[in-house]
């Protein structure tokens, strides 16, 4: 479980995060949603330590990440996995070498064990057969799956995903969503997904945090969104006329 307490982040004269407090639950897919510029990415960067909060606490199972020494933070990061928006695979390494990288760096396994573990991870994301290819030779969806395999190679307790569906077609997005959802439950990880994708929100959102102008505006599960009276949330989720009509139709059906 990750708990955020009264988190503020200021860049010179601009306050991007304004007192966010929330809990990201263990064994669930926690989604951070919000408009562009609302502070989602800044919040995630503060969680993983790529940025330091101006004030507030980030507690990993009760341990304050912000107050930790550099060395403790490095140790803590070995319990984290992260999937970046651009996948961030190492260009010079093959798919297999990318997945093996964290194992090569931090595990005491033999070469054969590391290779077997990496192949297991690739199998989990349905990428067996692509292990000798390089990131430039595979599609965006495959790159995301390699990034997932690399992120889970060391069995992390916390998994962070920064817009994992960006740039992917709806079908591939569903595959990625199902993978993340499945992995979260299988390994009982605390997964935090930063997303704009409404399919993800409605499909795998077990704990959704809506950020508006640097503040937590709403928190709940996907089934509560339909009935929510929060105008900012519904304007954001049901932005198009088609979605608005669908929502009204579903609400009518439910009340009837």
């Amino acid at each position: 479980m990750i708990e955020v307490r009264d988190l503020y982040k200021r860049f010179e004269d601009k306050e991007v995060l304004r007192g966010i407090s929330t809990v990201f639950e263990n064994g669930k897919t926690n989604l951070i949603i919000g408009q562009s510029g609302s502070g989602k990415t800044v919040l995630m960067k503060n969680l993983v330590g790529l940025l330091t909060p101006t004030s507030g606490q980030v507690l990993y199972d009760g341990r304050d990440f912000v107050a930790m020494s550099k060395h403790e933070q490095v140790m803590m990061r070995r319990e984290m996995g992260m999937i970046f928006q651009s996948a961030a695979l190492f260009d010079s390494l093959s798919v297999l070498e990318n997945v093996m990288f964290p194992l090569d760096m931090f595990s005491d396994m033999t070469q054969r064990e590391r290779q077997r573990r990496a192949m297991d991870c690739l199998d989990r994301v349905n990428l067996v057969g692509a292990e000798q290819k390089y990131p430039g030779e595979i599609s965006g969806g495959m790159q995301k799956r390699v990034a997932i395999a690399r992120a889970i190679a060391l069995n992390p307790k916390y998994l962070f995903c920064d817009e994992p569906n960006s740039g992917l077609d709806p079908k591939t997005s569903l595959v990625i969503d199902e993978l993340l959802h499945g992995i979260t439950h299988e390994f009982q990880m605390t997964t935090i997904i930063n997303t704009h994708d409404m399919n993800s929100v409605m499909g795998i959102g077990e704990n959704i945090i809506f950020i508006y102008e640097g503040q937590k505006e709403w928190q709940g599960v996907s089934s509560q969104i339909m009935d929510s009276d929060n105008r900012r949330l519904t304007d954001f989720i049901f932005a198009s006329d088609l979605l608005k009509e669908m929502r009204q139709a579903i609400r009518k059906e439910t009340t009837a």
Partner: protein
Amino acid sequence: MFIEKWLEAFGRYLILMSRTFSVPERFRMFWKQYVKEMSQLGVDSIGIVLLISFFIGAVICIQMKVNIESPWMPRWVAGYTTREIMLLEFSSSIMCLILAGKVGSSIASELGTMRVTQQIDALEIMGVNSASYLILPKILGLLTLMPFLVIFSSATGILGAYGTAYIGHIIAPDDLTVGLQHDFVPWFLWMSIIKSQFFAFIISSVPAYFGYTVEGGSVGVGKSSTDAVVTSSVLILFSDVFLTQLLS
């Protein structure tokens, strides 16, 4: 304002170097990177070093023969000056200026691209000291191979001078040989190698700083690559003056 900016950049460079020079997390991984960098930065530069050194050696010899030699000068003077110029300046300083363009831009653009595509962030999230993992093997790899490049450059420059003698018939080979052997000071070779070590550090660490701290997208990477080459070239020229004074 300019001094303040420069001091800030220098401070950030020192902080980056302090992170870079830390004990590698895994020697197995460090060794792999170190060998790779020696190959990419050093071995892959041998071709251009040999090519340029050969022709510069030949041209220096021709210029000396045509413009310096006179009835009042010994006939070996062209060979002697060619050797001294190659050894004292070309094979260390000028060759490093050329390498600052080739190796420096390569380091800055590689690290810059890794930064903008979040590959460096990915390393940090894994708990890897990205500065040490990425930059230390580059610095040590180039420092290791630089003495060989200096020796190869001097030797090839002299071969180029022999080319003018045997192929161009500009100078008699015997006169050239006498000149090349005349009053040889072994310290000059060491001086050249010592200077090149300082320059190798500049060529690898300064572009690494520019690449590692890049901001923005592809434009930022391009700018960092240009800044890296310009800054390391200027630093090489400045330090050449001080090192030559210090070591002579």
